[in-house]
């Protein structure tokens, strides 16, 4: 199959990957044969087969809703690229093109 450039552009935006032109062209070439390979799944009739999301029988694991110790703010922020007091520092959400 041929993978359209605009599909690659769109998927890169969804994935928040800032690929440059060269990378996008390479993705287009490399992903096409992989997606072609997936086509073989079409050989199987699966309309009545239930999907398997995971293989163990545990469904929902509940615990009492009780306060318990968690990481300290210092630990939580220990690897933060930017911090201010006990908060993560982020870039401006609006503006700054």
């Amino acid at each position, binding site marked *: 199959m041929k993978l359209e450039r605009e599909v690659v552009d769109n998927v890169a935006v969804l994935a928040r990957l800032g690929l440059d032109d060269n990378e996008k062209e390479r993705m287009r070439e490399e*992903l096409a044969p992989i997606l072609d390979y997936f086509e*073989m799944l079409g050989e199987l009739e699966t309309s009545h087969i239930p999907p398997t999301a995971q293989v163990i029988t545990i469904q929902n694991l509940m615990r009492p809703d009780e306060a318990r110790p968690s990481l300290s703010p210092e630990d939580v922020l220990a690897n933060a690229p930017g911090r201010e007091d006990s908060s993560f520092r982020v870039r*401006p959400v609006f503006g700054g*093109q």
Partner: protein
Amino acid sequence: MAGELFNLTLKEASDKLRSKEVSSRELTQSVLDRIAAVDDKVKAFVTVTAEQALAQADEMDKILAKGEATSPLAGIPINLKDVLSTKGIRTTCSSKMLENFVPVYDATVVERLRQAGTVLVGKTNMDEFAMGSSTENSRFFTTHNPWDLDTVPGGSSGGSSAAVAAGMGFLSLGSDTGGSIRQPASLCGVVGLKPTYGRVSRYGLIAFASSLDQVGPFTRDVTDSALVMNAIAGFDSRDSTSIDQPIPDYTKALNPDIKGMRLALPKEYFVEGMDPGVERTIRTAVAKLQELGAVVEEVSMPHTKYALSTYYIIAPSEASANLARYDGVKYGYSDAQAPNLIEGYFRTRDEAFGSEVKRRIMIGTYALSSGYYDAYYLKAQKVRTLIKADFDKVFETFDAIISPTSPTVAFKIGEKAADPLAMYLSDVCTIPANMAGIPGISIPGGFSDGLPVGLQILGPALGEEKVLQIAYAYEQATEWHKQRPPLS
């Protein structure tokens, strides 16, 4: 003699510690000396923690002297794949994204090994975020196979398998999402066990594909594998997919009598393009199991050929969601120049992820995106049901399944690096077990062209004991596991 300590099995080293023939410091020094002597060629380690290891060894020697150590793992030098969180010790996933990341807590398995008294000598190299089959996707360097330095050690846990094969630790833990423990174990001639999904806690394992990931040991023989399972398996309330069932003493499974056991040989695992030498070696190993009294019958598992496609939809889909957490805000690499939040995401992720990780995020995002979800992700989940049903059917009448671990021996560095699909085919024999969540082991099964060939044994869910028993029976009847690579 002291110079050869690093080549012992874990059990042998443990016995020598108990009989006071050696100290933990001597064992640890022997392993550190071995790292200093050969790791510039093998390049298995991302981080070596020599000082901490020696201090820990001294501490363990005091405890051993008082006779207070209860675990056979006490005082044993080990290493860990750099995907497991180690408190206070850099944990990189061999990615630029986590190059300077220092976890603030231990993974549950790390905590359990610390409690058992093991001595951590370092963290091992891997394919970035465990995506790959050769360690060539590490953002730092490629690990070399100790049996032939021009070849890959397999992956993604290639640093762990190479380290254990080369005498740089008596045990390593890796992670296996589609074969990342068993395939490198096969290529490096060591024992690699992927337990049942949920048997070993994944808390603190940096996530790749959460419905498939499982932690397991690399060791030099099957006895050691059982000893490690005794220490790491079991329920963990911090992992919501952890199985809450009692843990057996896995060493009790080490009984070499497999007379009358029924072993299935699936014809689909002898794939087109398989090395003739690998096939010959595995057929010889099968004959040995028959000689030991096992009943081997060929079976068909008709959906095997769809497992690779299914895997390469499901794993990247889950990965694309898991890796969304790398936003340059909470931890990890962060682009310093971006003018606003969204541009920061784009640049941070572009600069810090390598090409295979980006490729998989793209595949996964595509497969989950509006208009494609049913055709890819949902379809793959349905085919996963069929693959699992193939296994259920075989295990109705067989104790275990026997196959090659990998269709080839170790391949040359660079040989498959330019062709993602050819690389993906390295995992064709290991992926189905992850889809079904069942346990599997790779043990040394012989050599082809001077390179190790792994024999894979798969069992039903929670059937680790059966898998270990068959592996042990084969191992006791052969000498392959006693071979060490000719490194000097």
